[in-house]
């Protein structure tokens, strides 16, 4: 099973036997995973295997039915919305699959959102910080006054990344960071993720089914299949995992033990 990078402080995120069901559909069936200090872990797996649900359980957007979720040693499973959840979420940065930028706010206001709304910082100071973060992801100050709808999807991802790193989080989550982007823009985003994570010095947990991205941004990779982590290890060992499920997935083969469920319309 996944082991954290050896540090004195223990894992930054620790999942033990996490279960989650939606009605009769059991999505997570005992997920165990550690993310170490300043480590980047990528969860791979097919659609519907529970990657997003795992992320949402850690973020508190969903409540796990069973199991333990610890962030920096603090048990957070079952932590409802409120001051404690807000304090915890202040440690997080999140890049959503489709950026999830606020349409009604300008780009710089999106980037500075956690500073103005979350921390009550003045707009002038927050704007200054937002501009610095935007420069870090290669966005000019002119972009700051535009609205998200005026940007391409690649630019929106950059803004989402700037927003994620704006409060200097301890942990950043990336949900399918390269989905919907062309290969060149995907590489740009991957490069930015690596740079930003190093710049901020935080831990990172990403989910993706893009193996190029997983190899690029991860220190370790964990594969989720049928609600369980079936393999975890360093990126350079994934090609020699000895796991036929992992082999089929990373090589993108239709034949193998993983069967794609096709439902008739």
């Amino acid at each position: 099973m996944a082991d954290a990078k050896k540090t004195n402080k223990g894992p930054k995120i620790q999942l033990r036997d996490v279960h989650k069901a939606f009605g009769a559909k059991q999505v997570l069936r005992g997920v165990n995973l550690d993310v170490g200090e300043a480590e980047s872990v990528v969860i791979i797996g097919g659609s519907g295997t529970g990657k997003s649900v795992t992320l949402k359980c850690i973020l508190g957007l969903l409540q796990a039915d069973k199991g333990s979720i610890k962030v920096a040693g603090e048990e957070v499973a079952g932590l409802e919305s409120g001051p404690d959840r807000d304090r915890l979420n202040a440690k997080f940065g999140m890049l959503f699959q489709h950026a999830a930028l606020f349409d009604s706010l300008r780009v710089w206001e999106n980037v500075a959102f956690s500073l103005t709304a979350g921390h009550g910082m003045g707009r002038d100071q927050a704007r200054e910080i937002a501009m610095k973060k935007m420069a870090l992801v290669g966005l000019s100050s002119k972009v700051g006054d535009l609205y998200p709808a005026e940007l391409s999807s690649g630019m929106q991802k950059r803004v989402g990344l700037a927003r994620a790193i704006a409060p200097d989080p301890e942990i950043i989550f990336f949900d399918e960071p390269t989905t919907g982007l062309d290969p060149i823009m995907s590489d740009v985003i991957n490069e930015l993720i690596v740079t930003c994570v190093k710049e901020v010095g935080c831990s990172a947990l990403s989910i993706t089914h893009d193996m190029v991205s997983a190899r690029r941004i991860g220190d370790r990779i964990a594969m989720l299949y049928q609600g369980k982590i079936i393999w975890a290890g360093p990126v350079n060992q994934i090609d020699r995992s000895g796991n036929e499920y992992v082999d089929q997935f990373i090589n993108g083969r239709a034949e193998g033990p993983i069967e794609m469920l096709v439902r008739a319309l």
Partner: protein
Amino acid sequence: MNHPIEFVALIGRAFLGFLATAGRLVLFALEGTTHIFRPPFYFRLIRRQMVDIGYYSMPVVGMTGLFAGMVLALQSYTGFARFSAEGAVATVVVLSMTRELGPVLAGLMVAGRIGASMAAEIGTMRVTEQIDALTTLSTNPFKYLIAPRLLAGFTMLPFLVLTADIIGIFGGYVVSVYKLDFNAANYLKRSWEFLEFLDVFSGLVKASVFGFLVALMGCYHGFNSKRGAQGVGAATTNAVVSASILILIFNYIITELFFSK
């Protein structure tokens, strides 16, 4: 033999579903309302919602009030002329506008304009993960999205209704004086003579309740929308329909509370 039982089970399921929805709605309203009084306060958002509801709804509410008052004068005149009671037109216009037509018509128009817009905006935010993003950015969606809208709906609709009352009464005056040849001074005198504080006050209380209901329905359906564009469309429809029905139900309840003997 099974058919009657299945029929009863169907009714039972529908009733339980109704109770569950009502319970969720009450909890949603309580959570949204308590956040109005708990810091931090997003004054910029509250102001924006107040302007959107109170200022930008003014033309549509004003037009509705104007034509409602004009039609009311015309209809009551043709009706009262049958038993020579034309003199009551002014009283009918002023009482109908302040007690009933002002708040109900303004409420329904705002339900169409604001309720739909709130449901669509919040519903789109839900399906594009913007509400999840708020949570991850340590911002409570109830405080940021729901509370400002509930507060703005509750406080702004009385101003709109007051405007609709004044414009509606003016519409009745114009038709009565310039088309039906009423004496202007007499018309104004009769309007003022029979108008009591309670008539206006009850209308404003209705307005506050209707404003709250419109915002609540828009927020509730938007917040709980699912399944992409189709879900947002359904949320918008449900917001307008449920707000309109609740306005009519609460209109009766409040009228009963104020005026039943």
